[in-house]
């Protein structure tokens, strides 16, 4: 429960970033990749990735098409749209800013103690 809270705000960003670095990918692949990158720090239910993908698609940041996986399985592949790239940039900047502020905040806290 504790992890998933961080999760929900940032899942969309992670998906966009994954698609940017990996190119078109299916839901299973995205979920696996996110787990790998986090070095298994984040434990996610793979099922939560699908509503997030659907939401991004509804917002026009990604598009999807059926294709064939590396193991010759039929799968639905998601790819970034141009709007998605821009959104990713914006979100990254926002995240970095927030992270930096938070980091500064946490460290000063320690100094004063």
């Amino acid at each position: 429960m504790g992890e998933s809270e961080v999760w929900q705000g940032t899942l969309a960003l992670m998906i966009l970033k994954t698609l940017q670095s990996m190119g078109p990918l299916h839901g299973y692949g995205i979920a696996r990749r996110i787990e790998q990158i986090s070095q298994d720090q984040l434990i996610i239910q793979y099922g939560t990735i699908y509503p997030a993908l659907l939401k991004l698609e509804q917002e026009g940041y990604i598009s999807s098409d059926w294709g064939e996986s590396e193991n010759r399985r039929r799968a639905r592949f998601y790819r970034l749209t141009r709007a998605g790239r821009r959104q990713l940039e914006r979100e990254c900047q926002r995240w970095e800013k927030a992270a930096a502020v938070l980091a500064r905040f946490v460290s000063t806290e320690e100094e004063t103690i």
Partner: protein
Amino acid sequence: MRRLRAFLLRFWGLSAGKRQDEEFAEELQSHLQMHIDDNIRAGMTPDQARREAILKLGGIEQTVQRQRDQRAFSLFESLCRDLRFAFRNIHKSPGFTTVAVLTLALGIGANTAIFTLFNAILLRPLPVQNPEELLLFGDGYAAGSTESVPDGNWKLFSYSFFHDFRQKDTSFSGIAAVDSTQFQTKASISGGAYQTTHVNLVSGSYFSVLGVPAVLGRTIGESDDSIDSAGTVAVARYSWFQQHFNNDPSALGKVIRIQSHDYTLVGVAKPGFSGVTVGQSTDLWIPLSMEKAFSRAGWNGLGNKLFQSLYLIGRLRPGVTRAQAGAETNLLFQQIVRSYLGPQPSQKHLDDLAHASVQLTRGGRGVSLLRYALSLPLQILMGIVTLVLLIACANIANMLLARGVVRRREIAVRLALGASRRRIVFQLLTESTLLAFLGATTGVALAWKGSGLLLNMAAPGPDPVPLNLAPDLRVLGFTIAVTVLTSLLFGILPAFRSVGLEFTPALKDGRGSSSVSTRGALARSLIVGQVALSVLLLVVASLLLRSLIHLYDVDTGFDKHDVLIFSLDSSTANLPHGADEIRSVRLQEQIESRVQGIPESAPTASPSSPSTTVPGPIESSFRAFRVHQRTATRSPSTLSATDSFPRWVFLSSKAAPLPLRTEEPPRSPSSIKPWRVASSRTPLRSDLASPSEKRPIIPARSK
């Protein structure tokens, strides 16, 4: 923009559900297959691999549902389902539903009915252009006329003041003047029979300032109002025009005879407009220039600078604030009225004037003595019907609690099947909202008829008070707000009680043991509250009833049985006032002596008929008389005081302990007063109505 797109797609998702469900099932299938493949490669048995994949996914059904929620508005979907379910449930227990709906209909209906009156009298703006720009000089809680020097908050103004003020002021784009008294008189159209007609005198600027156009012909203009007694034109109210002329445009130019003067009908005001006085509707508007001719001998309203009988309504110039306008108005008011006092005014007049001021009030809602008289009673009534609604709520909440016990098992099963508590509370609230809306629909139907009936009870008389009681957006909004609030009020507690149950015992036998005692306490406190409110209401109601009975029993100082009142409009009897006045005086004396000569048994027309002609000799001699008979339940004091006819009250000699006649018939021409009061009280004289006096003032005589 993105949000909107997502919103629209989700909306689309409502309809395209099935195909997308299939597609997503396929996607999940491929997801699981890939995961299983990977797991097998990692060395699991196929069963293990499958189990692990599903576990990692977080359950197939759950994933599908989450996907559905994102695809379309699950809230909307579940609302539709809840509504269907609620309908079925309500249908299943018709007894409960009937009682609940009727209770709510009473509660919500009573609230709507009172609010409809409240809205019509206190809130609704006049059907004029930009009513919020209109400012009334004074608060309008006075009617009639006065010749005193202004003193205190002034409410009525003279024609000269209107004229002089208009030339000097800079705050208003226009000012309209209207006589504070509406005349109920007789009019004859193209020589036809005389009919009761309500006539109001207005300035030439009246229609243009209010922004009321003519739907036919023209309205009264400045030229009609410029020369004394020259504006013999009339503008009709739309519905009056429909009633008398059947919408026939050729009616323009027809001659209407009112009190020995002929007026030409020049136009019809736009539909819906019936004057600025709420609770009075004007049939014909006539220019103020006709005041002298119209109001018969002795009156010289236009000429007398201190004959103050008009309401003034101004339209603020754009960019001018009410405070600025108020400051300018008061300054000019002092200057202008000071100039009317002559070169050497008395110290008393100067002192009075120093204390006088004009308060600008919002004029968009019109003027109304009715408002003044009824605003407090309406507020009290509003409070009482709120209590009624609260009692209804407590009652239904209690019934729902009892039903909650019956439905305990059903809810426990649904909780066990995985329904969230939030969903169940939402569903139960949907049910109560549905009940409330059913009640509201019935209630509004009741209120529709009810508010008219209430108005008749509040202001009894042969003529209904002309108020626009048609429900508007404000009433609708009020009713919906009340309904939703009501449903939450009676629904929320039982709903939360229902889901707060202990699981296992409820599942086992449908009668949870642990929460029975708390439910009992809740139900008991609801009943206590209900009884307390009911007792309060009962006491208030009986007090009201007592006062009502007392009012009918008020000792008027004479026996009210067999009281006859009648009035005479001499102009219709071909007896004009003015030079021939002595003839009408003779006539009046004659009537008096002949009525006194009627044997005691004669004036015995059925007491139940409110208006009847006197049998016997009078009927044959004077057909033009209007005779009213009022019995004790309608005391003479309820008579309208704005009638312009002389009136008498006759008491049969047997019944009268004291020979009281409310007014002296004039003895000689010099003492003739053109305006009389048919009232058992002393007629009010010139001054403005004191706030405690609810009856309109009677126009004072002028010399």
